[in-house]
Every structure is written in structure tokens, then in C-alpha cells.
């Protein structure tokens, strides 16, 4: 389980996250959604250990992040964070990259060789697997970076905007199914972000909506469906982008603020 306790984070003066407390159960698929600049990536960065919050803390399986060298190493073994922008070693082949990352996470060598091949097949990178990454298109780079997170065999996958960055529909479909089966069959915990609610509605079983640095919704999809009268999609649009539909109406009515 992931526990976020009273996390406040700011880079300058303006707080990005304001006293956020959350519990993300194990084997869940949690999507953190919200408009741009509201703190989704910051929250995931705190979970991923990239940021040390000014207040509060994060616990994964009862181990507090950055509390001791041993705890942090153990958390790093259990949780992998994949930012939306990765730096890939462009002179290495996709396969070399996957093997290298797997070794960093001390994955068994035999499993690594087998798993890397299956991941390349999964994301239709079989033919490109032995080409240097510099030859990959933007979408293919996104795919290989997703593969690199999956090859670690981490129990917690913290993925920042995994569906963006030129991922094609086949890639989106593959990723959605993989994440769903990871959670269902292997009890892995997935936390991902997206600015687009539609993309994650079918992937996640739990939604956290961040607005202005605070959690405005923290519920399962089933709970939200039970609450909404006009459909989940409309509800999310109203919650996440409350002003957008009004702005559209104003635009066609010829009004301005």
C-alpha cells in the first residue's frame, strides 16, 4: 500500500501540493487526473522519490521514503517511477537498454533475456530491438521507455502520462491490457497520471482528481459511477474542467468575461 501523509510541496513560493493525504491500496490501478499545472506530476514525483516534500511523507509498504539508506533502497527495488520525459541512451539498442535497466534492478539474467524479448514483441518493437535507439520514432521511444519500467519487475509502477508522447493506438491498447492484468493477476499496484479523463477511465479502477494542489476526488470508479446521474464521463468533465464547458457556451453565445 502507498500512504501519502500531509504532503506539501513548493518549488518557489506558490505551493503546488497542499497538505495532501491519500492511501492507495495494493493491487489497485489508480489514475491521478486533473488539468495541466495542478500538481499531478509533482505528486507522482513525490511518490517516485524524485522530490522530497517540504512537509509530510510517503510510505510504501510501511517504509518511509528517504528515511534511511536501507529503506530507500528497498523502496527503489519495489517501486519504479517513469517520468513523461526520459533520457534514453541513444547509441544503445532497445534490447541492450532493457537488459541494462533490468540488471540495475537485479532481475534474474535468464528471466531478463526472455522478458525483454516478450516486451519487444508486445509493443511491436521486435524488428527494431537490435537497432540503436536513435533510429526510433517518438512513439517507439515512448514504447521502449515503457518497456524499461516493466522489465524491472517492480511491484509498484508509478507512470507519469504513460499514454502521451506519440504512443499509437496499438501501444495504448497493449499498455491498458498489460496494466490491468498486472494488477489483477500479479497484485501489482499502478499509479498513473493523465490530463485526459477518457484515456484512463477504462484503465483505472480508482481515480484521484487533483485541483489547485488539493485532492478534490478520491474514489473508486464504481463509487463514482454510483454517484453520477449523467454518466461518469460528464461527471469527470464537470469536476476536472468545470469552466471549459461554460467557456464553450460563452464562445458560441458571443459573450466574453
Amino acid at each position: 500500500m502507498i500512504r501519502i501523509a500531509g504532503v506539501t510541496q513548493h518549488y518557489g513560493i506558490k505551493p503546488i501540493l497542499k497538505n495532501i493525504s491519500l492511501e492507495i491500496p495494493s493491487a489497485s490501478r489508480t489514475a491521478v487526473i486533473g488539468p495541466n499545472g495542478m500538481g499531478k506530476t509533482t505528486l507522482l514525483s513525490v511518490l517516485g522519490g524524485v522530490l522530497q516534500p517540504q512537509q509530510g511523507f510517503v510510505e510504501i509498504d510501511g517504509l518511509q521514503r528517504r528515511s534511511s539508506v536501507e529503506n530507500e533502497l528497498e523502496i527503489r527495488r519495489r517501486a519504479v517511477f517513469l517520468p513523461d520525459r526520459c533520457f534514453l541512451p541513444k547509441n544503445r539498442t532497445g534490447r541492450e537498454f532493457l537488459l541494462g535497466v533490468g540488471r540495475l534492478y537485479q532481475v534474474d539474467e535468464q528471466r531478463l533475456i526472455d522478458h525483454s524479448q516478450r516486451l519487444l514483441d508486445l509493443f511491436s518493437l521486435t524488428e527494431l530491438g537490435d537497432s540503436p535507439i536513435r533510429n526510433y520514432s517518438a512513439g517507439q521511444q515512448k514504447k521502449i521507455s515503457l518497456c524499461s519500467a516493466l522489465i524491472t519487475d517492480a511491484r509498484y509502477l508509478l507512470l507519469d502520462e504513460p499514454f502521451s508522447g506519440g504512443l499509437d493506438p496499438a501501444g495504448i491498447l497493449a499498455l491498458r491490457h498489460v496494466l490491468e492484468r498486472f494488477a489483477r493477476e500479479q497484485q501489482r499496484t499502478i499509479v498513473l497520471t493523465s490530463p485526459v479523463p477518457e484515456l484512463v477511465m477504462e484503465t483505472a479502477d480508482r481515480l484521484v482528481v487533483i485541483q489547485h494542489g488539493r485532492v478534490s476526488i478520491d474514489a473508486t470508479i464504481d463509487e463514482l459511477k454510483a454517484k453520477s446521474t449523467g454518466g461518469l464521463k460528464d461527471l469527470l468533465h464537470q469536476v476536472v474542467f468545470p469552466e471549459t464547458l461554460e467557456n464553450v457556451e460563452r464562445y458560441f453565445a458571443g459573450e466574453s468575461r
Partner: protein
Amino acid sequence: MKTWCRKVLPPEHYVVFALLILSFIVGMGIWQELVYPGIVRFPFENPATQLALAVFAGAYGIFRVVAFHPASRPDYLAWLKTTPWRPGLPLPVGPLHLAGQDVMTVGLLMAATLLFKDNSPLLILQVFLVSYLLTHLLLLTFSQAFHHAYWMALLWGGIVLLCFHPLAQFLLFALLYGITLHGLRISLNRIERWDAEFLEKQLQFSSDIAAFQETKWGWPFDSLSPERANYVASVRSATALSLLVGWWSFVILFVISSKIQRRDLIEIASPAGAIGVMLVLIRLYRYLYSNRPPISLMGRLLTFRWIIPRFDVVFVGPLLILGVEAGTFTLCSLEIIPFLWGIPVMITLQFLIFFLFPPSLDEWRMTGAHRIVPPSMQQSKSFQITQ
């Protein structure tokens, strides 16, 4: 005789080539004297031959180790491991210890110096021993006989200090040779454990940056993977290294101070301050390379978080290094302690702080209150940034 020589000397064509050059140099020296109008006196006056003979002695000393040491020849090492050879038996290619052939070769070079005025046979012997033993020291390090290499590095300071006391110096050379032979025996006993890949890299003098890049997998994995820092100094090795550096700074200052006035010594010792600054910069670079302050400077000032203990602790070590430096120079300038002792102690302390002052690099990376960012080196040409 030919077979006997072959055991140790370079291949014949090299020997012939070397003899030709040597004969040419010696011959030129004699010829210049002969054609000079006046009385020819023996020994001939040509001090330049000393340099040429010394170069030969030095080259021969290096050859004697490099050509016969399995640590300097990965192909030899690989082959040796496939043969029934075992530690204790003579090395099949040739001995690493000094042999009669060496006495003959160095003796010839020394004898050649006797033909010329102001040429010293002793210098030839010194140059040979220096190059022979220093090459051994290097290869003892490569073959991971670190204790012997360390003691040799310490004793080399004595060789420098005793440069005007030949007898004592040669006694020390004998001691160094003894340590070398013992270290060699110990390291050859562990030959099965020698890391051939490591040796090859050391011998190829491969670019550190290229080697560094080879093990890099980009952002975020290099910064967030469950791996400890590559290089962590133990208290023992850090102390030993600091003492060695301090000792050598003493040796250098001692040699310099014997030739100059005290006032000049202050000027010469001042650059020692640059060592402290360099250590500060290296430490800050290692600690802050991809770990930045958690909030901006403006954020700090305006939110009154002027000191963030779990981040600012990274500056304590460097400040201490500079403090030791300032204190030492003040005390030395006031003549409370002599420069000759003050500077070496200062450098030893600075290295100790550099290596051992908390937090350790691992502790800092895993528990510091910093923001982890993609290292700037990774934004170089070697990495592709995804969209």
C-alpha cells in the same frame, strides 16, 4: 651465452638496434673529443651522453617488468591460466626478479659512463632501479596487491628524501625490492582471481568518460535505481590515502625547503591551497551533480526557510575543508607552526574530510532533502530525450 641472454633481454633485433644507437652516441662523444684541436684527455668531456645512457637504463627497467608481468599482458595472462603453471613455479616467459643478465646490461651502461667526464655510473643504477620498481608498483596496484603497493608508495618518499645520501638510498631500494618480490609472490598466488577485464581497461588507458557512459542507462534509472554509489571509500582506505598524500606533500616541501629561503617557501606553499579548493569543487560536484535544492533561493528567502538542515548539510564538509586551510595558513604565517609540518597536516586533514565527513554519498543520495534532476551530462549527445 646467446641463450642465456635471451631469457631476459629483448628480441635480438631490438638489442642490435639499441646497441647501434648506443654505439653511435658513445662514438659521437669520443669523436667530438678526438677532432677537437688540442690535447685529448681521458675521460672524454661529453656530459650529454649521461642523459642518453640514463634513458636507456630507464627504458630497460620498464621493459624488464612490462614484458614479463602477466598483469601487463592480458594475452599472456589468459594463456597462463590455460597451462599447468601454478604459483611457485618459474614464470614461463621469463623471470620478473632481477637476474644476472640485468647486472650485465646495467653494468655495461654504467661502464659506458666511465668513458666520459662528469658522468655518474651511480645515476644509471638509480634510474634503472626507479623505473624497474615504479613499474612494479603500478602493476602491483593493477593486480590488486594494494597493501604492498601502498607501503611502496610510502617508502618512495624516503627515496626522494635520501637523494643526497646514496648509501642509505640504496638500502631503501633494497627494502623496496624485497617488498616488491613479496608482493609479487602474493599477487601471483591469487592469479586466478585477477580481473582480466579490469586489467585490460587499465592497460588500454581507456577514456574515463567513455567507460562512464558505458554504464549509463539514462534518466531516471541512473538516479533512481536500487544501486549504491559506485565508489565508496572505507574509513581504512580513506585514512591510508590521506596519510599518503600528506606524506608526499611533506616530502616535496622538504626537498624544496632545503634549497630556498623561508620567505620563498610561503610563496611556494601557497598553491597548496588550491588542493583544498579542488577538493571542495569535486565534493560539491559529486553531491550536487543531479541533486538540487528542494526549493528555489527566492522561495527559501521569502518563506523564511533560510537553512534546510537535510539539504545544507552537504555544504558543511566543504566549508570545513576551507576552514582547515584558512586556519593552517594563519597559524603558519604567524609562525606558530612551521610550514613544513603545517601544510602536510592540512592536506591530510582536508583529504580525510573529503572522504569521510558525513553524509556519505550513499546516505546523501538516499536520504537527503534534495530534488533529483536529470544529470546535465545526460543531456549531452549520448542521450535521446523522449517527447
